[in-house]
């Protein structure tokens, strides 16, 4: 079957745009067999994300639109709304004795204590995963963490709304450019960015080279103020807003290798400078035996710059009806974090009954140079330190299954469920005071997403 020239150009142009995922590239649900009006596409999804053990709950909605405007130009837009809340680890370690902390808005270690003699509540209990609907967050509170438990701040909550849009157009017959901008607003974070990319086809459109740039400016306004890095937890001298800027450059190649196999490799480099510290995270200090004195916590501190190199290699292989996707990503950065990600999807076609798509992802991460589970009080204070479990060495495994079904000619419905587990280990030789404690409990999360796509 010979594709008409316009459709062929579309296919590879879309493949080139696919280098830049997200807002720039939109898939079309039905490539036209004839020239003529290109369909507009609206793509929506709703995600429910839930971690076990009273950790994070997140709900997110995305609505995307892609509209061709004739002459191979198109615009695209996306709206994302997201609400998250629940328990977030604060970086302090579990201890053999009980510990107390305060939520970020507190201005002393002893906020007016909520004294109650009793509680009124709905009866019944058990069942479900401890779903939290993210309403009525707690502020200015002290909370007690039982011995052996990982300190978690249950007052964490945030809402985000993000809008992005872009425009793409051809340059001559062999090249294309696209440009876009995005805005994202959260309770403690505001981000603006612009991006642009140029792509060019070679070799009868079997090869596409692309280059792009993304510039982002962020403003961080931590809830309760910005603590002085490495200051003691009880100091409560907090400053105002902070900024961070990022520049990303990306170079990529997409190659149709055989009739069945398309491959893409890209290299990207990101430089970020500004406030990179997590204002809510602290680090436990212990004495030589590993016992912590009450209240010996420091606010964490991360370097002001971070440079990251990423290499990404993606492949899709078409069987007669099924599709296999396999990718590998390697990142390395100036914080000493090296990561490897292996990912695979297999789309099993059921003909008129839709398709199943199992998914597996394996992720490995090394710890940041300045990551420490804890500090010895008597040792010299390092310039940078963080106990954020996300900067530790760990592995992550994801398994998921998606089911999709076409709705008539113009639509598709899909649903997917995934489970994501993080596993790691605590320090190799903890001092006696920390032995017997689970210093890296890991994490398990479930995702459930439903989506609808329509073409017009």
């Amino acid at each position, binding site marked *: 079957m010979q594709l008409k020239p316009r459709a062929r150009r579309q296919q590879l142009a879309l493949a080139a745009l696919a280098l830049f995922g997200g807002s720039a590239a939109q898939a079309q649900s039905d490539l036209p067999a004839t020239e003529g009006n290109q369909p507009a596409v609206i793509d929506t999804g709703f995600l429910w994300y839930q971690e076990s053990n009273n950790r994070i709950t997140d709900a997110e909605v995305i609505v995307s639109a892609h509209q061709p405007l004739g002459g191979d130009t198109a615009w695209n837009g996306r709206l994302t709304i997201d609400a998250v809340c629940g328990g977030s680890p604060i970086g302090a370690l579990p201890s053999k004795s009980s510990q107390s902390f305060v939520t970020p808005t507190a201005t002393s270690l002893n906020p007016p204590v909520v004294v109650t003699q009793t509680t009124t509540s*709905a009866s019944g209990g058990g*069942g479900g995963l401890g779903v939290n609907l993210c309403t*009525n967050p707690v502020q200015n509170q002290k909370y007690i963490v039982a011995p052996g438990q990982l300190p978690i701040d249950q007052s964490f909550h945030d809402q985000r709304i993000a809008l992005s849009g872009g425009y793409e157009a051809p340059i001559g017959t062999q090249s294309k450019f696209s440009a876009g901008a995005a805005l994202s607003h959260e309770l403690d974070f505001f981000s603006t960015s612009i991006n642009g990319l140029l792509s060019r086809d070679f070799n009868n459109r079997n090869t596409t080279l692309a280059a792009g740039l993304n510039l982002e400016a962020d403003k961080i306004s931590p809830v309760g103020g910005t603590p002085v890095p490495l200051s003691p937890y009880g100091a409560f001298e907090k400053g105002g807003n902070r900024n961070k800027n990022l520049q990303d450059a990306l170079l990529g190649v997409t190659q149709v290798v055989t009739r069945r196999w398309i491959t893409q490799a890209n290299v990207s480099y990101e430089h970020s400078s500004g406030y990179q510290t997590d204002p809510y995270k602290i680090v436990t200090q212990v004495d030589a035996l590993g016992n912590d004195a009450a209240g010996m916590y420091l606010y964490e501190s991360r370097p002001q710059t971070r440079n990251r190199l990423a290499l990404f290699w993606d492949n899709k292989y078409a069987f007669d009806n099924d599709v296999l996707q396999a990718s590998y990503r390697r990142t390395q950065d100036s914080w000493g974090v090296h990561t490897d990600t292996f990912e695979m999807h297999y789309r099993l076609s059921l003909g008129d009954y839709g398709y199943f798509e199992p998914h597996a992802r394996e992720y490995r991460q090394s710890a940041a140079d300045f990551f420490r589970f804890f500090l010895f009080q008597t040792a010299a204070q390092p310039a940078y330190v963080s106990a954020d479990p996300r900067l530790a060495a760990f592995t992550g495994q994801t398994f998921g299954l998606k089911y999709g079904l076409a709705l008539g000619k113009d639509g598709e419905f899909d649903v997917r469920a995934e489970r994501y587990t993080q596993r790691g280990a605590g320090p190799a030789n903890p001092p006696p005071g920390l032995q017997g404690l689970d210093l890296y409990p890991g994490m398990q999360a479930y995702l459930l997403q439903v989506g609808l796509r329509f073409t017009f």
Partner: protein
Amino acid sequence: MAGARIPPIEERSISIEERPGGVQAACFLAMGCPCEILVASKDAAVALHWAQAGVAEAWRIERKFSRYRADSAVAACNASAGQAVVIDAETERLLDYAAHCHELSGGLFDITSGVLRGAWHFDGSDRLPSATAVEQLRARIGFSRLVRTRGTLTVPAGMEIDLGGIAKEYAVDRALEAMAALDQTPPAFLVNFGGDLRASGPLPAAPWKVGVEAPARGPVPALVLELGRGALATSGDTHRYLLREGKRYGHILDPRTGWPVENAPHSVTVAAATCIEAGTLSTIALLHGAAAESFLEELGVTYWCLR
């Protein structure tokens, strides 16, 4: 609570613990939920002396009205297979009260709706009942089909009554009365059965501080209410549910349809003079789903809704 072994009343004990503000709490299990009676006293033995009358009332009501007990009055009515059963004055008064609630709520509050638990199992899974199963059970619901004469109740065959929705709050009021009757000048007490509570009067130095449980069910309350005298009851809808295709089906069932009420608040807390009023108002408000707040506003009730 289904599945957990609840010890019989004879094997249960009362423990005393201290609470802030010079209060002792007598804690025990009754009617399938954790109960406590708080007494304004520095002495555990004194507190126990006062609380015992309240504990005895709670266990008496559990024996008499629990549908789980074969020897209860409720079980006798439900096993009668359409025959008239003689009931005592207390049971009759509770049924009269249930009839008022049925009218006040336009049919939403219905003590015969317990049969729906045969189809709905709120275990957090995605197993919804079939429409037929729900319809078959709905055919067995209808408070107006109970036949009542003075001193008797007839529960038609296939139907059953369940006083679980009002027994706890009724028990709070009765326990308080029993304790107050012991002496001319009792100390202040607060009776809390499973989250529904009533205080006889304020503490010597301050009002009672009652926390309203937060959605996350952690130790930190969403709100703290100051209570002098009167009752607070909370009804809620997020701890037992089914989740299917991203939609959450809460456990409060509308007896008119047999399906969960939609858009109910996470919890409704109502203040009233007696616990039974507060309890039925909060339950009926929750049954109004999205219109919970407007229902309570119309009636001029003091309430707090968490959504």
